[in-house]
């Protein structure tokens, strides 16, 4: 049986002022339905580029991306993206931001009451029912990111794509949102691709960690199976020797095999 999401020989070349820049090459990855994949690597290794390819925001220079055996051509509402900087529209309330997505995906088939229900349910899922009518400028960074996640989840996507969703948050807020994300993914069984810099985050959340070599011409270096049982608890894992072993393997990849030379 074929995997759900297939990336075959993807190559991405950008035209820059200094000539061609090969961002990604020979990327091959198969993701099963319901799997949680973390993409990790040093900055500039093309993690986000790979995510954008799956999102359909950019087309690969060569190679093929398949989702459910169909080629990915441009963005689609079967793939939702949580952006690094939340990317909420500042003139719409939390409700308005989520509703925009809900309206687009379900507006043709469902009545207004149902759309409203969906929007509120998504905000409830991320614990924001008290801030429904606030503007993004009036809430904290962590809350904005939750709205971004709610917007993505409300679309009931087949694949959830997250580009360093918690990168800009403080450690405590980040931990809280990671726990929430684990719960949500458990509930919705969404196939998830998450770009991250954070080794602990990658080990805690994912089923497999895709470790990327440094750019230019970055590719997948190693893939680490995270066979920790679910549900996972960050406090218990802190004492788990296997957790530390996995964490050590990621660190070893990042800091010994592929240490980025200081620019």
């Amino acid at each position, binding site marked *: 049986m074929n995997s759900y999401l297939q990336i075959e020989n993807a190559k991405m070349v950008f035209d820059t002022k200094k000539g061609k820049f090969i961002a990604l090459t020979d990327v091959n990855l198969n993701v099963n339905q319901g799997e949680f994949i973390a993409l990790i690597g040093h900055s500039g290794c093309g993690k986000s580029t790979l995510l954008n390819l799956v*999102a359909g*925001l950019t087309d690969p220079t060569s190679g093929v991306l398949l989702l459910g055996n169909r080629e990915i051509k*441009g*963005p*689609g*509402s079967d*793939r*939702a*993206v949580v*952006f690094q*900087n939340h*990317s909420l*529209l*500042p*003139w*719409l309330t939390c409700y308005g931001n989520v509703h*925009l*997505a809900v309206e*687009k995906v379900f507006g043709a088939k469902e009545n207004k009451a149902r759309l409203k229900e969906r929007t509120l349910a998504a905000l409830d899922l991320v614990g924001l029912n008290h801030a429904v009518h606030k*503007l993004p*400028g009036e809430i904290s960074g962590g809350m904005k990111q939750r709205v971004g996640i709610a917007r993505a989840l409300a*679309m009931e996507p087949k694949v959830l794509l997250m580009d360093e969703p918690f990168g800009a948050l403080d450690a405590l807020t980040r931990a809280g949102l990671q726990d929430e994300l684990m719960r949500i993914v458990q509930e919705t069984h969404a196939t998830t691709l998450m770009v991250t810099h954070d080794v602990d985050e990658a080990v805690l959340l994912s089923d497999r960690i895709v470790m990327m070599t440094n750019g230019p011409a970055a590719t997948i270096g190693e893939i680490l199976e995270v066979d920790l049982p679910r549900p996972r608890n960050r406090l218990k894992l802190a004492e788990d020797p296997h957790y530390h072993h996995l964490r050590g393997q990621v660190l070893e990849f990042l800091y010994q095999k592929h240490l980025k030379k200081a620019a």
Partner: protein
Amino acid sequence: MSAVTINEGSLREIMNHPDTLAVAPEAPSKPRPTPFFQTERGQALLESTGAFLKNALAPVLGLALFVLLWQIVSLKSGNLPGPLKTWESAQALFADPFYDKGPNDKGIGWNILASLYRVGAGFGLAALVGIPLGFMIGRFKFLAGMTSPIISLLRPVSPLAWLPIGLYVFKETEPASLWVIFISSIWPIILNTAAGVARVPQDYLNVARVLCLSEWKIFTRILFPSVLPHLMTGIRLSMGVAWLVIVAAEMLTGGTGLGFWVWDEWNNLNVEHILIAIFIVGVVGLLLEQGLMLVAKRFNYE
């Protein structure tokens, strides 16, 4: 003499007696209300008044110095009216702002309204044409390339240079002055709108793409709100230009309006009225600017 004699010793005894002390304290009264200026609200009021006075000090001093200089200059020159004379003249003028004694002799109120109307109409037309044009130039690179040389060429032209063209084409002064306002105030609107469209953050456009929004939704939910602050800047600049130009245009076209009035009073050698006109132009311009600033604030989401 009373029956009881009180000497020093017995007095001390009385004073120290427990009964005496029990009565001696002040009668228990309601707690005195705190004076207003010691309450929280009073303090806040004092503070804000203090801050206001502090902030007002510099502008008031500046204005006072300005009036003083004006007085000195008028005394030295001998024929320039001083502040007091101008003030008296202004009082007489504003006592009856809306009289109408035929053409060429109307109250100051009518003249102000006439100028405001022309600015509003000319500027409104400029907005009507300039905003959509700005959006299109911002959205389509090819159109930007096409219009850029024309705009660069025409924008620096002095507004009044357009007046003869207007007079020639329209054969009348009224549409000609509207034309001058239109053509001189359209550039800031076009350029700022186009710059705003070109500067819509890529993040927002990515959201639009990921959500697969329709062109109409992109325009109403993303493009327009995002451009609005730039648009308001353009409108404010072009309103400023329009107000600058109208006085000059009316001096040439005549009939009604502040510009005409200035020229008329120059012909009458009524210098106080010219000074008053300068103040009016300044104050109205200031009010327009401040009003638009308030509107712009409403649309600033950051």
